[in-house]
């Protein structure tokens, strides 16, 4: 929003921005310093705005106060547009040099350093392995890349922080990873930071190809639980990179209302390619990679729903998957994570010869009412604005009677991933939308 205000200010239109007090704190703090550079005047609206009845909006305007200044909200708006500028609001030009971050921290005891890392919010508040020079040097032996090579520059949410190979090694050590995991971690570093939204997003990390077995990742029984060193530390490294180099800190740069417990490990799994039914391609092959490629794919989403029990003869698996998918927002896509036994049942008893056939069936059969679809705030914000712009199919959907059934999922965005130990015919539906993936071998 600060960018819209900035665009208007640059056209000589005095502008005030309105937001909840959390957004105001972010916009006038981190975003101003590291991204926007213009000291936009904000008023802090009472919260929430969305979902409130008209009489509450009336009260906000006629009786509400600016959550920042404490003034009557309308007086605060008038002041923001008419109060002469302070000297600090007239500053232009280059900012002061960024405060450098030293490569080494001052020597201290292990206990004090563990405390420092927590005070700086560089950890997930579980104990870390301290990144001594020797440990980081050992980690760097896992790649031929130079320590000062920049994997990517992280510019969300502003700040243009260079994520170097050495910084990745530091976080890998902190997470407890081993040097042989490092090429996978460098590929994963291309996808840092984790999903960052007031809506409490999370991520899924999926590994495909020969690297799974070379590293002994768990794609079988208990693959999604805390039972494997690689799955655990790879997922954790993603979080630590996001918090350190990514600069994501609660109430400074991230403002998730509830947050997500999935961010401790980011659902880090490997596909059980060996147990895929014949004709069902591994995910990375569906994305255009070779079967012999090792690939890590990251998805962003929110939700994770279990089938709970085993598949019943009286109600085929795809029917219950369809039912549970109706609970998802329909924003972005879905990833169905299923045990190999479910995949085998779907192929052998239900006739889905490929993953794509299952995705097509789900896209055709998962229906939601228009009211339920637009009743989700993320949908209302994104698809709703496209509907108001006249873009189809959203424009037609928005005009339809509330109980009209629509098919909100696109076949291209319904992924199927096979994971598990053939212990029970269970599955999860999730709304994670996986990306195409990053090749791992080029980071060796």
């Amino acid at each position, binding site marked *: *929003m600060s960018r819209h205000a900035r665009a208007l200010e*640059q056209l*000589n239109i005095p502008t005030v921005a309105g937001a909840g007090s959390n957004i105001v704190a972010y916009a006038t703090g981190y975003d101003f310093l*590291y991204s926007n*550079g213009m000291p936009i005047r904000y008023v802090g609206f009472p919260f929430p705005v969305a979902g409130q009845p008209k009489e509450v909006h009336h009260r906000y305007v006629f009786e509400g106060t600016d959550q920042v200044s404490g003034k009557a909200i309308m007086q605060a708006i008038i002041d923001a547009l008419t109060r002469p500028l302070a000297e600090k609001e007239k500053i232009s030009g280059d900012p002061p040099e960024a405060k450098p971050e030293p490569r080494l921290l001052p020597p201290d005891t292990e206990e004090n350093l563990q405390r420092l890392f927590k005070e700086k919010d560089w950890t997930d508040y579980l104990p870390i392995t301290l990144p001594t020079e020797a440990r980081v040097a050992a980690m760097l032996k896992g790649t031929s890349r130079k320590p000062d090579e920049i994997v990517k520059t992280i510019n969300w949410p502003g700040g243009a922080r260079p994520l170097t190979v050495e910084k990745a090694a530091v976080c890998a050590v902190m997470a407890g990873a081993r040097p042989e995991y490092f090429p996978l971690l460098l590929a994963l570093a291309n996808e840092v930071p984790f999903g960052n939204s007031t809506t409490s997003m999370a991520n899924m990390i999926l590994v495909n190809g020969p690297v799974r077995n070379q590293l002994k990742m768990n794609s079988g029984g208990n693959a999604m639980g805390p039972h494997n060193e690689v799955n655990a530390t790879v997922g954790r490294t993603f979080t630590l990179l996001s918090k350190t180099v990514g600069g994501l800190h609660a109430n400074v740069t991230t403002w998730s209302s509830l947050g997500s417990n999935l961010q401790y490990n980011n659902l880090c799994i490997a596909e059980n390619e060996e147990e895929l039914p014949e004709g069902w391609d591994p995910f990375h092959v569906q994305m255009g990679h070779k079967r012999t490629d090792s690939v890590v794919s990251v998805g962003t989403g929110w939700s994770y729903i279990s089938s709970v029990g085993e598949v019943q003869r009286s109600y085929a698996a795809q029917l219950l998957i369809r039912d549970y998918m109706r609970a998802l927002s329909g924003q972005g896509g879905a990833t169905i994570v299923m045990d190999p036994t479910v995949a085998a049942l779907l192929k052998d008893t239900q006739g889905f010869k490929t993953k794509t056939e299952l995705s097509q069936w789900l896209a055709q059969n998962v229906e939601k009412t228009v009211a339920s679809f637009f009743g989700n705030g993320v949908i*209302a914000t994104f698809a*709703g604005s496209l509907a108001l712009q006249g873009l189809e199919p959203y424009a037609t959907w928005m005009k339809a009677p509330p109980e009209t059934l629509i098919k909100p999922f696109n076949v291209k965005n319904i992924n199927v991933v096979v994971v598990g130990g053939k212990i029970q015919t269970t599955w999860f539906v999730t709304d994670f939308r996986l990306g195409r993936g990053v090749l791992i071998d080029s980071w060796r």
Partner: protein
Amino acid sequence: MVLEMQEGRIKVKIKGLWACSLLVLGALAFAGHMPAQSGNADKITVLNPAAASKMAKRAPLCPRLSSLEGKTLYLVDINWGGPDAAYSVYEEMKDWFAKNIPSLKVVIKRKRGPYSQDDPELWKEIAQNGHAAMVGISG
């Protein structure tokens, strides 16, 4: 060892030599849980995981209006929270301005696309026809 409260003070009775030994052992154990002292031998050097952030180039605000009397104010809904969020608040604000600054013309507009999408055409319209603007309302 027995601790007793006596006239507001703690009185310590030590029963037997074995208790003295326990006292010494307890003290040693306690010391083991204290932060390490500052001897250089206990100190280690570690790498800094943080990376420096570049600050943004500064840009000034434009001059403010002397008042809103007789001016045109655009209220721009950036589409955060759906069609019934900011737009509904803006309708109330328009009512408030009509009662309190009747000479102010208020125009409510929805920005094109999701909240992060730029809308240069609307900014141009506001620059041509307006004197001030509000953008919002994000939660």
